[in-house]
């Protein structure tokens, strides 16, 4: 099958330029937020917690923090990228262009994922100012980051197609994503929870993602890395299936 590189590149560039217009805020914000997290969680609370499973608390929260930010950034950027043209009406051009659904997704999700990875990397770098973090499996960590960025952006893309108002666009990240991430063990190990709560937590898919990501850093997580990988791939496949269905039926894109 032919791949329309010019089209994909045009969309990708357009989206990256959109991020570029707010480059200063998008890059400074994670630096400030990360610093705040380290001051509050790392120093204030962390000084009492010292270690979790042999890992200093400050280092322990780095993967969770990166994932939390990637999750919210990906959803926000990818959903906005496709929601805006729908809202402003400029989507007519995309719909009338000789671009396949696959190419559209590659371009939009690729651009949003790029931004997420850049931001996650900035957080990683900022974290080094506060704590000493060693990465046990650097390649696996990068691969995991890429995989998660793409998956989250796909999820955001779905949200953007589904949403019919700005309110809907914001309600999902606020009501679903934030709690799921917070309760997913971003800042603690689920082993620290009472047994009953631990069981409940295991139904939260984010637990597997954070655990897997943490494994790439420290060589151990709350659940086995294989289970984490399976969870990420399952999430990815579900998102792909939904996007595929949306394009096949023209769901909320075409009358």
């Amino acid at each position, binding site marked *: 099958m*032919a791949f*329309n590189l*010019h*089209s994909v*590149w*045009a*969309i990708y*560039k*357009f989206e990256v*330029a*959109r991020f570029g*217009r707010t480059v200063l805020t998008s890059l400074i914000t994670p630096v400030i937020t990360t610093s705040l997290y380290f001051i509050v969680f790392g120093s204030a609370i962390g000084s009492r917690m010292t270690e979790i499973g042999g890992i200093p608390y400050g280092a322990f929260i780095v993967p969770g923090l990166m994932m939390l930010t990637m999750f919210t950034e990906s959803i926000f950027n990818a959903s906005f990228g496709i929601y805006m043209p729908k809202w*402003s*009406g*400029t989507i*007519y*051009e*995309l*719909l*009338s*262009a*000789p*671009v*396949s659904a696959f190419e559209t997704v590659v371009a939009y999700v690729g651009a949003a994922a790029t931004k997420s990875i850049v931001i996650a990397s900035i957080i990683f770098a900022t974290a080094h100012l506060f704590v000493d973090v060693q990465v046990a499996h650097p390649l696996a960590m990068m691969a995991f980051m890429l995989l998660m960025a793409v998956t989250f952006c796909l999820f955001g893309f779905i949200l953007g197609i589904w949403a019919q108002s700005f309110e809907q666009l914001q309600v999902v990240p606020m009501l679903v994503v934030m709690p799921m991430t917070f309760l997913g063990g971003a800042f603690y190990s689920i082993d620290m929870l009472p047994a009953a709560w631990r069981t409940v937590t295991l139904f939260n898919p984010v637990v597997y993602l954070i655990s897997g990501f943490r494994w790439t850093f420290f060589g151990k997580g709350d659940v086995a890395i294989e289970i984490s990988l399976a969870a990420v791939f399952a999430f990815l496949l579900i998102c792909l299936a939904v996007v595929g269905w949306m394009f096949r039926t*023209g769901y909320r894109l*075409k*009358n």
Partner: protein
Amino acid sequence: MQPIISISDLTKTYKSGHQALKRVDLEIRKGEIFALLGPNGAGKTTLISIICGIVRPSSGMVTADGHDIVRDYRAARTKIGLVPQELHTDAFETVLATVSFSRGLFGKAPNPAYIEKILRDLSLWDKRKSKIMELSGGMKRRVMIAKALSHEPEILFLDEPTAGVDVELRRDMWGLVHELRQSGVTIILTTHYIEEAEEMADRVGVISKGELILVEEKTALMKKLGKKTLTLNLSEQMTALPEGLADWTLELKDDGHELEYVFDTHDERTGIPSLLRRMSDLGIGFKDLNTRQSSLEEIFVSLVHDGAGSK
């Protein structure tokens, strides 16, 4: 010659249940300017949107330059440029960036010289570095035209191109349309302004309530339906039509100072000589008289009326 666009048995029923197109068949010839004429809500935008891939057809088939618009959408869409009815633009992009983006989106390699030419033709070159939101409505419309032309389409759709457009842009646009036609581009425009179709088009299709009522060469249409109006400036004001003139369908105009008679130039007998004789018998004098061709507008109104009346 193979038509550049071929539409057969096309219907569209929106989710609301509204049937916007009813079994439309139409062939557009390569290189012509075709005007799709119809009142608001007739289905013009729906028809164009289906051909361009924005709306899904409920049934029927469309090919553009021989390519099925659904199965072979890539090849079909590459040939097509669209200037939609509504003004939809990005806000923060610059003019140059947005037009270059469109070219890329349609799968063409960059060609700065060509983009420059379009922008110059549309008097946008000086504004190329401006953000779109800083432009006036007319300028934004020019940007949309530039975007539609950026990938060198062979078929150009203009949906209500002059609705709410200033005189200058209107003139520029017609200049451009003629130039594009010279270079072989097929142009399909929709309008509910009759003069526009009359002025521009080679052929006219009349659409009403989702049905294509007729398709004609513009000149043939004018001739075929060549009604004329005879106006008599009366010497004395008339308050009512006299009994003696009941054989003719006449109308009093201008407060009874004018008498109007609509006749068909193709009729064996127009009824004019006898009317004038009768008037002189009745002692009704007139100072002046003139005849004029009915505009497409009047033709259209009578067509739609006849169409509705025959049901």
